[in-house]
């Protein structure tokens, strides 16, 4: 009788689990059509593995690249995919607008909640500590170098390692040699859209700037016209005057920057470790011809802007759908869970990178689960396809005490917009009055902060 009862109980539990996992999940994280190798990874490995474990869950593959322009319309019409990727400046806005789902209960049930890196968890939580997303990975900005251009300019040591700049002054001097010897631009600086302000904020930090501060009454103050920011912008002006930038920075955006670097039109480009596939796989630079260094120091020190990509969930997704989507992440090796499936997922990702000429690099720990992080490090060690010396300076810089800085917290995209306007003026008019332009940008940002934050 006891045996029968326990069998019944087990059957009931199985049934309840199965019914809990009966859901339809739209995978907004499915790769774009043009990325056939990544699609193959999902089609031949992740999806079949998931189907085997959760046959009652229907998966709808539907790539969605997060875009601020389209998101509100999608959210209002209930068409946001069950799971999608965004970036770290977005969660607070999405949470405030009620456009993403609270996944705290699901994370608690899975035991993942306390394994999220605390500073990232804060970015993904509301004021009551409820959590709305999980981290995919983290990144830190540094400087990518096209080794071929440095070789052509004769700027390599006896081991063939580029003689890279450690400060902005050195970058200007290095840039002059590159320009003279190869004709390539020293740096691809972005000034087409907000990515320009994003990169510039990191440059300004290296001159000791802090772009937003909070006074004793809790009021947020814009700090875009301090002597430190002026010094940073003046350095940009020097790059313009010396002709060290690509021909038209106002037409350069995040994507074109990688094309300029990958094809050797520019020797250097500010970029992060999570985008090493861009110059290599997408723009043809050989995996051994890419180098990464820490952000050059200004009058202060080197800082790396740190951000990343979180997974978030549609506001209208049910708990079952959220749970199924989280389980899919587990299969992909993107969760703090070490199972055979997740270990295989980590290996599949590394194999994909090796096969496609993308550097396999150590990841930034977004989970605090030691076993998971160790497994991740083991896979990187096994599949490493780069000369460690090419990335040594970068990893030294980002792991240095206080070397990482999160983005400025308030109205960040609008702040980037204001800085981009100044950059556009400076790169198109070498005689621009930097102080006056930054005074205007500062006043504009203060208006925006007063309207949206200081109430």
């Amino acid at each position: 009788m006891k045996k029968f009862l326990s069998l019944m109980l087990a059957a009931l539990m199985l049934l309840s689990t199965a019914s809990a996992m009966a859901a339809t999940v739209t995978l907004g994280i499915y790769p774009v059509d043009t990325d056939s190798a990544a699609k193959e990874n999902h089609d031949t490995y992740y999806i079949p593995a998931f189907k085997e474990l959760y046959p009652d869950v229907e998966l709808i593959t539907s790539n969605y690249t997060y875009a601020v322009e389209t998101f509100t319309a999608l959210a209002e019409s209930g068409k946001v995919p069950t799971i999608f990727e965004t970036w770290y400046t977005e969660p607070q806005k999405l949470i405030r607008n009620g456009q993403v789902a609270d996944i705290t209960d699901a994370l608690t049930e899975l035991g993942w909640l306390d394994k999220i890196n605390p500073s990232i968890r804060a970015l993904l939580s509301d004021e009551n500590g409820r959590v709305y997303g999980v981290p995919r990975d983290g990144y830190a900005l540094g400087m990518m170098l096209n080794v071929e251009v440095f070789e052509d300019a004769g700027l390599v040591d006896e081991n063939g390692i580029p003689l890279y700049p450690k400060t902005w002054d050195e970058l200007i001097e290095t840039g002059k040699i590159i320009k003279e010897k190869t004709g390539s631009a020293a740096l691809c600086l972005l000034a087409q859209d907000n990515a320009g302000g994003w990169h510039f904020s990191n440059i300004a930090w290296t001159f000791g700037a802090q772009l937003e501060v909070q006074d004793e009454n809790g009021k947020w103050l814009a700090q875009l016209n301090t002597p430190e920011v002026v010094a940073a912008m003046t350095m940009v002006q020097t790059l313009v005057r010396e002709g060290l930038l690509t021909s038209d920075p106002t037409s350069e955006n995040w994507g074109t920057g990688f094309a300029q670097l990958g094809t050797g039109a520019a020797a250097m480009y500010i970029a992060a470790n999570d985008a090493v596939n861009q110059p290599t796989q997408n723009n043809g630079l050989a995996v051994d011809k890419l180098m990464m260094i820490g952000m050059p120091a200004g009058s202060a020190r080197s800082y790396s802007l740190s951000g990343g990509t979180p997974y978030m969930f549609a506001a209208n997704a049910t708990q079952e759908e959220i749970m199924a989507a989280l389980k899919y992440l587990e299969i992909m090796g993107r969760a703090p869970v070490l199972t055979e499936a997740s270990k295989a997922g980590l290996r599949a990702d590394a194999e994909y990178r090796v096969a496609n000429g993308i550097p396999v690099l150590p990841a930034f720990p977004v989970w605090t689960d030691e076993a998971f992080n160790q497994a991740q490090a083991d896979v990187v060690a096994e599949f490493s396809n780069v000369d460690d010396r090419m990335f040594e300076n970068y990893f030294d810089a980002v792991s240095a005490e206080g070397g990482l800085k999160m983005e400025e917290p308030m109205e960040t995209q609008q702040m980037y917009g204001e800085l981009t306007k100044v950059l556009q003026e400076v790169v198109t008019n070498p005689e621009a009055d930097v102080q006056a332009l930054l005074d205007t940008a500062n006043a504009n940002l203060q208006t925006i902060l007063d309207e949206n934050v200081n109430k």
Partner: protein
Amino acid sequence: MSTIKSNALKQSARRHRALKDLGAWLIMLPGIALFAFFVWVPLAEAVRMSFYKTQGMRTTEFVGLYNYSYMMLKDPDFWPAVRNSFLYTGWSLVIGFLVPMALAMMIHETKRGKSLFRTAVYLPNMMPALATIFLWKYLFRADQTGYVNMLLGKLGIAPVSWLSNAQLVIPVIVVIMTWKGAGATTLIYLAGLQSISQEIYEAAIIDGAGIWSRIRHITLPQIYNLARTLFILQIIAVFQILYEPMVLTGGGPNNASVSLMQLVFRQAFELGDYAKASSVSVMVSVVLITMTLVYNQLSRKKEM
């Protein structure tokens, strides 16, 4: 008896008219429904939204004219956008107004291959708008890889930063718009020219009038009313310029090419503030309605 008969006749006439009207209403119904759904309701909703604060697309709190005052008095991009929208309109009249008229006259005067030229000038209209913009973006690239700069290079002229020069950017965008849009207007002018009686020209030729004299004394007076109408329509269309600067320059450099409709797009879709976007839309509408009233006034004169 006759009163009863006349009443019955009136009733029958009314019924007949109602039946006739019903048919007309039924024919119009799909159009009215579509207009209501896609134009009138959103229009009314945008006006209502402009007086509220919004979360996503939902209104949360009535704030009266606050969104209007914020945009006009505090938003850093509003006045550059107003200035530029008028500049686009002004430059489009300087660069683009006479081009279709001249093209139409040239085609009209052409004796052979008329339909070839007609097709050729209309071809840019048939190209997808974004493809056209990207095409011109490549042509106007700032360095030696831009085709326009390559041609200038052959003449020994240094490369010009066409789209990142604050003074050049609006005229250059207007040139691109003219290339894309002039064909349609040319066809309207051509239709106008073809309606002018040939006899007048023949009489003028007999009197010894040359081509310039014919254009000045016959063609221009005959198409004057048409030109006046197209003039107003062009102002209304260009004032709402959006995708050309958005794709070519993003509104830069430093707001040198940002337009009012781009500001609407930015507020709504990039910043998610639909209320402020609506307030700018309403202001644009007011300007356009004023222009339309002027247009109607002129049209009425034309009809008289």
